[in-house]
């Protein structure tokens, strides 16, 4: 008898729910793509052999992203006011971590990597636990926020030549470059993010921003390998004070700089080991990096 009662209620309930479910259960308070950009439905992303679809990404955006990035995709989610650095404003289509030259749009792979890897020291989590399909869908949806994606193609990824060997000479040349290129003006002589210009840095939205502190950083914003580091200063971090050095640094010099930068991080790397050995042997010879023009030259 109780089973009959259950069946009746279950049936009534199911009918009610089916009625409810037959309504298009799309969320209604997420803005669709802004005027002038490709429609949400036709937006796609291509990462490897996975195709992402903006329509699915829209549902995922609501679940995972809206709290920070906002219902309008402009980085003004409900939590944005308590977050530093501020969440990315997708309507500008300006992205920090790219494989493409400064001023150009990132590739789908760049956006996918950014979502997967997150941004260390920020509130942007590593979304790696999402399936690759979900991440590809999110990339496709993110691209619908700005009309630039309809009018411009993504930039051509820069060519990263094979890495040169890690030697103390490479590190010393890199150190000379760090001096010559005046990286220390923002990053500080020891890479602590305390250079003379560090305190006044603002990003492209006029928000104060701090340069990367090599001495505490276990990862970079845009990756963790030497290749990632090479790419950072060869493409610049658009939207931030970090410029592109592609026009002024040759590939070999770029690798030298990478090797030197590694010595400033608290990691057990080959570069660090070589540098420590050298520093012990040449304590009195090493000139500090800084405003003195001859410093750093070795």
């Amino acid at each position, binding site marked *: 008898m109780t089973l009959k009662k259950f069946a009746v209620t279950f049936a009534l309930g199911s009918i009610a729910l089916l009625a409810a479910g037959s309504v298009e259960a799309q969320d209604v308070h997420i803005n669709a793509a802004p005027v002038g950009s490709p429609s949400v439905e036709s937006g796609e992303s291509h990462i490897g052999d996975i195709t992402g679809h903006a329509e699915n990404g829209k549902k995922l955006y609501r679940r995972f992203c809206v709290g920070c990035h906002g219902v309008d995709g402009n980085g003004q989610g409900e939590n944005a006011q308590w977050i530093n650095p501020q969440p990315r404003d997708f309507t500008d289509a300006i992205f920090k971590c790219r494989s493409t030259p400064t*001023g150009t749009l990132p590739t789908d792979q760049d956006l996918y990597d950014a979502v997967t890897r997150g941004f260390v020291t920020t509130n942007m989590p590593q979304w790696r636990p999402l399936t690759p399909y979900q991440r590809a869908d999110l990339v496709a949806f993110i691209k619908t926020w700005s009309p630039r994606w309809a009018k411009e193609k993504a930039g051509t990824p820069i060519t990263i030549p094979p890495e040169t060997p890690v030697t103390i000479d490479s590190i010393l040349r890199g150190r000379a470059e760090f001096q010559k290129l005046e990286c220390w003006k923002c990053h500080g002589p020891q890479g602590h993010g305390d250079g003379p210009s560090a305190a006044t840095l603002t990003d492209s939205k006029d928000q104060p921003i701090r340069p990367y502190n090599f001495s505490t950083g276990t990862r970079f914003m845009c990756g963790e390998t030497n290749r990632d580091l090479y790419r950072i200063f060869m493409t610049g971090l658009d939207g931030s004070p970090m410029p592109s050095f592609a026009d002024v640094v040759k590939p070999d010099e770029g690798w030298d700089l990478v090797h030197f930068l590694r010595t400033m991080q608290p990691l057990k790397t080959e570069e660090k080991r070589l540098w420590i050995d050298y520093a012990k042997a040449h304590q009195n010879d090493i000139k500090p990096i800084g405003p003195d023009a001859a410093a750093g030259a070795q």
Partner: protein
Amino acid sequence: MRLKYFVALGVAVMISSAMVVFATPPAGSGVISGKVTYTGTPPKMKPIDMSKEPSCAKQHATPVLTQNVTTGPGNSLQWVVVYISAGDDNSGTPTQAVRYDQKGCEYLPHVLPMGVNQPLQIYNDDQTSHNIHPLAKVNQEWNKSQPPGSPSIDTKYDKPEFIPVKCNIHPWMHGYFAVLKTSHYAVTGEDGSFEIKGLPAGKYTVTAWQEQYGNKTQDVTISGSETKTANFVFTATPY
């Protein structure tokens, strides 16, 4: 004999007409000139402290002043871009490059007008690195490092926009690229005066843009080779 003369004359006339037709657009001889002034109280321009960059600081006997509202004698406003915003045929992209210098940790000129797709060359004349960071919103925003001794950065913009330019390393550096569709523009000098030359006859809308106070527009009609006066007055506020 006379026939040859006439033929030669006819050919000459045809050639010269052709030159006129196929060369630069009919350069009219109308001129719009005037002065840009302000009423009210503008902010005081402050001296810039360049002590963090000694190689620049020593280039200035007296500190350079900020330039967001640069005033001159007779309540004039300098660095106002006056340009034809409507009525111009906008034909032809100038091929001559315009030049932007970073010198003494200042942008020279403070406001640089240029045409859409006109080549732009940016030079670093200082002994310090600058990063050149034009904050375009309609055009592409990019950011490049330019150490001393490096070659010019050659680029151009393909959409009209007033683009603020900054250097992150030297936060006091502010400048503007005024990318304009028209080739008829001028920037007011120290006395606030401007002159836009070479205007064919027609009805024009003239706009004056000041970086802090925005736009003012006027309609001016040119018939023939006359000089019309158009003055602009901005209401200045102390902040």
